[in-house]
């Protein structure tokens, strides 16, 4: 195994640092992120304030301001390119890329009391974390600064002074700390402190002086005081290699320099003026450094930043090595050669091609060239490789084009963002890991809106996640520009955003409001087509009437509820009711809510509106929910009053009747022990009649002006049910029946008394005669009646009831009669 490294220059730094990086606290964000410097940090003179400066990766200034807060122990960047400044007292200040203060948070009392000794800022799948070693030699950890849960780790046994070195690991979905105390190693997790031993660590070492964890947390490198670098897996189960650097002074920095899926371990150790790369084999590679530098570990290499230069140190990718190795016979190399010859119009091209094709490795060759192009930094080399690939593709049928096409696109984007003016030196591997979305976010964050839009359009990112999103950010930025007038900004925003899909004007308006421009916010909200979206902000801006009408406009009841409930808490009762009064939809909704939750409020609402009708209904409803009679009567009385006020005499009278009925029912209940209270008038009478209280029933009949018909029906039914035929007959003779006599016939038949039924047949009106005869089963009589009336349909009815066998003669007569009736 042999370690192949390449070091390329990314930028000549654009900054002008007098003393280089000396006496600076430096932090550079991974994925080609920004660089923060705290200048004059180590000078510690009380008069001179340190200066905090932020630069792009190419050294272009982004922000600069004097540091006025406490003593900074550590700088670091979050995954979303925010700057963290950890102070001695455990307060962490968060700044944006442009030096704007965002917020601060504390790492807890314990930390502020015993002060910060050392800090490490780390990234995990849960976000950006902060680990602190306090003056009391205890560790405090926050895994995600956006959702701070402080964890104090267990004590390290026997720790008397600051440990020689430590690092944060992420294992088993947990952040842990690895601490070296002399030659002892411990892993600290939430609950325990476990001593561990790296397998095969050379015995000469009496102390571990430095350690580093790989970007992926999978690998660990330890440097001992004997100058040995031990490399292995971070779970300490496997040793990969051990190399003697032969230098015994403690280094300044150490980092892994290994690309994903690489077969070899490789770490970089930096001393003053010297950089050593150690790998699997015993040999080491040394670089001389002119200047003070910092190492920035990346996913697939290490960046080295010095006062003047910015370089990338990387293991040479497999594809590039295959192609560019001297005298390589790899298919990619041959293809590149073939293409070169072709350009020269030499026939050798054909020979090379033939050689590849004979081994049927042409598609492999194309793949190699495409892959290698991705790893190359120089556009010229990229082009050469891609041209070669394209050339090779011509001789292949069915070669899928996707890889080639997407590589061309990716490289175009990468070259654009690597540009000095942009200064994001991403490698292709990093870009793929980071995704386009995140890259666009970063461009937006750097206010590179036109470039971001270009990228979106070029990569055909769906508008929703692409162009629209960028425009929205642009607009949010635009509305914060204090020097322009509301009108100008509102117009500019609406013009730019007009035809973009999925734009939320309310978000932009929120930004405007947050920067103190309420009027602008309202103007912008006018552009928001979804009125529902306008509401929350309007509420925030205390424009409640507008919010309420917008909510109602949106047709979203839920939203109306939101506003109504908000107003209920915000306004005094009188104002609240007044506002509802002007908004019937909101009012009816609130009434709905009150029906279930606040009955009394409902009453107040009706009262305020002088809605006596509804108040009456309200009391009626309340009355039949109440079990106690007095309460019921009292409620009904209130209802009566309200109904009179509402000039609803009908309801008032009816309710008064009900009160009388209730009293009557109760009296009778007490006297006769019949269950009556709550029955309707009809049911009360039915009950009375069925238990033989005819007098009382009759009293009700008179008192309540019950229609004659109803009373007759009731009595009829009651008597028949008791089969009191004598009484029925008497009743029938009291006066002329208002319901006629057919019901008498029917009721008797219903109780299977044909004999009694027949008594009434003669009294039935001529129109109902046929029915009556049929009811008692008198076919003869029915026929007689029908014929007499010469009514065709009645004759037919009788006919349909005749049976052909028994009523033969009758049917003949009927048919004859029918014939004459029809003629008529």
């Amino acid at each position: 195994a042999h370690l192949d490294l390449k070091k390329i220059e990314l930028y000549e730094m654009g900054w002008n640092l007098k003393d280089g990086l000396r006496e600076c606290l430096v932090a550079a964000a991974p994925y080609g992120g920004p660089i923060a410097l705290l200048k004059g940090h180590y000078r510690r003179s009380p008069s001179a304030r340190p200066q905090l400066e932020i630069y792009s990766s190419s050294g272009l200034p982004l922000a600069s301001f004097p540091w006025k807060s406490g003593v900074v122990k550590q700088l670091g960047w979050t995954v979303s390119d925010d700057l963290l400044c950890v102070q001695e007292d455990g307060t962490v200040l968060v700044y944006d890329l442009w030096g704007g203060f965002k917020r601060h948070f504390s790492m807890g009392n314990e930390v502020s009391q015993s002060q910060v000794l050392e800090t490490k800022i780390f990234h995990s799948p849960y976000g950006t974390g902060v680990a602190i070693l306090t003056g009391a030699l205890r560790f405090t950890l926050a895994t995600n600064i956006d959702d701070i849960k402080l964890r104090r780790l267990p004590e390290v046994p026997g720790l008397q002074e600051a440990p020689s070195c430590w690092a944060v690991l992420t294992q088993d979905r947990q952040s842990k700390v690895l601490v070296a105390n002399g030659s002892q190693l411990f892993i600290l997790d939430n609950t325990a402190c476990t001593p561990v031993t790296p397998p095969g660590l050379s015995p000469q070492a009496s102390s571990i002086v430095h350690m580093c964890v790989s970007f992926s947390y999978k690998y660990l490198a330890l440097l001992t005081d004997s100058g040995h670098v031990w490399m292995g897996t971070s779970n300490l189960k496997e040793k990969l290699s051990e190399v003697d650097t032969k230098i015994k002074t403690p280094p300044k920095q150490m980092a892994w320099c290994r690309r994903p899926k690489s077969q070899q371990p490789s770490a970089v150790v930096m001393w003053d003026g010297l950089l050593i790369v150690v790998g699997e084999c015993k040999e080491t590679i040394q670089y001389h450094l002119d200047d003070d530098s910092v190492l920035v570990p990346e996913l697939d290499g290490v960046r080295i930043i010095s006062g003047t230069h910015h370089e990338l140190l990387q293991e040479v990718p497999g594809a590039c090595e295959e192609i560019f190795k001297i005298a390589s016979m790899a298919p990619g190399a041959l293809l590149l050669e073939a293409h070169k010859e072709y350009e020269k119009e030499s026939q050798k091209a054909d020979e090379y091609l033939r050689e590849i094709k004979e081994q049927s490795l042409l598609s492999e060759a194309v793949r190699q060239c495409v892959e290698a192009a991705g790893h190359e930094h120089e556009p010229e080399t990229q082009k050469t490789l891609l041209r070669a690939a394209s050339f090779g593709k011509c001789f292949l049928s069915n070669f899928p084009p996707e890889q080639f096409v997407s590589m061309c696109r990716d490289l175009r984007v990468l070259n654009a963002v690597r540009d000095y003016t942009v200064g994001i030196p991403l490698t292709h591997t990093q870009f793929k890991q980071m995704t386009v979305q995140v890259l666009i976010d970063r461009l937006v964050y750097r206010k590179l809106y036109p470039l971001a839009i270009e990228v979106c359009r070029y990569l055909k990112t769906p508008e929703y996640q692409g162009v629209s999103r960028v425009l929205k950010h642009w607009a949010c930025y635009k509305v914060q520009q204090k020097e322009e007038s509301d009108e100008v900004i509102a117009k500019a925003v609406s013009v730019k955003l007009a035809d973009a899909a999925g734009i939320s004007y309310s978000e932009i308006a929120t930004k405007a409001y947050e920067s103190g421009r309420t009027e602008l916010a309202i103007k912008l909200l006018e552009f928001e087509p979804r009125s529902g979206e306008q509401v929350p902000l309007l509420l925030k801006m205390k424009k409640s009437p507008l919010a309420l009408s917008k909510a109602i406009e949106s047709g979203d009841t839920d939203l109306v509820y939101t506003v109504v409930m908000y107003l209920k808490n915000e306004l005094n009762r009188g104002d609240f009711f007044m506002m509802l009064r002007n908004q019937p939809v909101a009012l009816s909704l609130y009434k709905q809510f009150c029906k279930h939750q606040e009955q009394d409020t409902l009453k107040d609402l009706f009262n305020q509106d002088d809605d006596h009708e509804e108040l009456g209904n309200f009391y009626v409803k309340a009355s039949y929910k109440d079990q106690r009679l007095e309460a019921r009567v009292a409620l009904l009385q209130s209802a009566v009053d309200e109904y009179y006020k509402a000039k609803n005499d009908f309801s008032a009278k009816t309710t008064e009747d009900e009160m009388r009925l209730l009293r009557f029912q109760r009296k009778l209940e007490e006297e006769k022990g019949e269950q009556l209270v709550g029955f309707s008038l009809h049911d009360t009478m039915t009950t009375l009649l069925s238990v033989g209280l005819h007098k009382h029933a009759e009293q009700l009949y008179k008192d309540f002006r019950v229609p004659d018909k109803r009373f007759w029906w009731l009595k009829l039914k009651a008597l028949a049910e008791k089969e009191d035929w004598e009484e029925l007959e008497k009743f029938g003779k009291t006066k002329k029946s208002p319901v006629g006599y057919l019901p008498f016939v029917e009721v008797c038949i219903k109780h299977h008394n044909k004999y009694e039924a027949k008594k009434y047949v003669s009294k039935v009106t001529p129109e109902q005669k046929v029915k009556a005869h049929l009811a008692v089963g008198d076919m003869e009589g029915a026929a007689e009646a029908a014929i007499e009336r010469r009514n065709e349909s009645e004759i037919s009815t009788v006919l349909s009831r005749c049976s052909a066998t028994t009523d033969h003669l009758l049917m003949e007569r009927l048919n004859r009669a029918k014939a004459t009736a029809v003629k008529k």
Partner: protein
Amino acid sequence: MSTIQTEAAVYSAVQSVVGSLHMAHTEWKDAPGLPDFSLLKRLARDQLIFLLEQLPGKKDLFIDADLMSPLDRIANVTILKQHEVDKLYKVELKPIVSSSDQLCFLIRPRIQTVKWISDLVNADKVAGRFRRYKIIFTPQKFYACETVLEEQGVYGDVTTDEWNFYILPLDDDILSLELPEFFRDNFLEGDQRWVTTAGSALRLLQSVYGSFSKVYGIGRCAKMVYESWRELMEDGEQRTRQPEFAKVFLVDRDVDFVTPLCSQVVYEGLVDDLFRIKCGSVEFGPDVTSSDKSIKVMLNSQDKVFSEIRNEHFSNVFGFLSQKAKNLQTAYDKRRGMDIQQMKAFVADELKGLKQEHRLLSLHIGASESMMKKKTKQDFQELLKTEHSLLEGFEIRECITYIEEHINRQVSMIDSLRLLCLLSITENGLLSKDYRSLKAQYLQSYGIEHLLTFANLRQLGLLEEQQAGETLTVMESKVGKLVNDKTVGKLTDAFSSLAKKSNFRALSKRLALVPKSGEEYDLRVPRDMAYVFSGAYIPLSCKLIEQVLERDGWTGMEEVTRMLNGQEFAVTGGSSSSEARSKTDAQRIVLVMFLGGCTFSEISALRFLGKERGCRFIVVTTAITNSSRLLEALLDNSA
């Protein structure tokens, strides 16, 4: 967060099954094939399981009473048990007896229920009992519910989620939101909270089955639903797919109250009126099964017997069934004279089917017998006669007398109310004298609490007292006989601006809803949609749909829409290039959404219309309704 995830889950599930969609319907005779709606069930089930798994471990599940049947169609007890549901309870708003440490509530977003849950939680707190509570609101949660949790101080103790179960396919062509309260909430209480639900349901259909080329609608609610749906579509991603429906028609229930108030006489409608079909299934009592136990039967197109009679006028059904019975006997008789081989084949292939058919046949015969017993009686005939007179505007005095007797004799609380409403709507309100006397008599029969019922009916315009000036309508109809139609139209316009009125008589005339009396109507060979009401009346809702589809919009119907209080719309969908697709199946499928419920009679009428026009209708309704359900929703005597 979780809702986003679940939605994502649903939509990714949509994506994965969408591919297999078109396979199901390859058969293509004269009618266009219908989309496969069972997919909606699968989506709902998957999401429910996902939600249940969010609360790992054994748990007791409390289900809203009216969600029981719909839930059963989606995930039966076995499936629930598989996902660690221990015991199932019906929500009864009473204290509970559960020993489980995890309680899950599957409920409609109702304030009352949420309050009950809050009380439970608080009671547990007092008793020092620790449990985990999860409320799954379906189809969505409402802010008001969360407010209640907050007010009751249990917001932090309860986790909430949404089960976006918007649509239950009841049959091949019936989709239901199963939201009976939609009607009362929206039309009576003025609470529009369900509008977005209906919009979401349409969006779901659109995202699964493709976009629509044209949308028509009438009614305030319809308009709002359309708006809400449009906004949802703008929010989400557009999927360009071959649409499975051509057109959508949205209609508010309050556009046509007459139809649901009429007695149903088509078999399926009658079964609903008599036995109450619940969620696509009916329980036939002992009088039908002619045994001592009740039997639950699913009523849908899977039932071969039922599917042939469901749309028939009930007078034809009995004859049809007896013919069917004879055929069945013949099929059984084939066994005679078979050799062993044939017999084997017969038993293997046909016998099971025959037996199944036999079982169903005997049930339906039982049902129609019981129907005939009840419905051929004198009083039913008289009831129908009265209804028809009202529809025709004929012998109104006799009708009023009939209704009076109906009330006085306490025949049926709901039926009396129904006739009163029908009288009021067809007559544009009752004369003051009649209104007061009938109302007083009704209150005597059924109690004073119906004062509130009457208030509700008045609010909805179902039962009104004519104001002094309004007798003009009577005038108008008289004038109508003297002058030509155009003048009548103008007069009607002038009148309708006076008040919100039903204008039934004028509408009926303009749309020819009531066929001329005296003509014979052969119910066995229906000639128009009127057959669903014995030839006496074409459902207004269906007539509107027919007219609009025919005209491809509302042009030429200005007077009609004015009489219906306007609010009509017709929108052409953005994406369709109608020329290219005009001949596909989809172009002949029309989705009709009833907001506030639809009756089986209307569904039958639309099926008939579809057959006539060579298209298919798919009915989406907030719930299946009929006169009883409609009126019961407006009673105010319980809660």
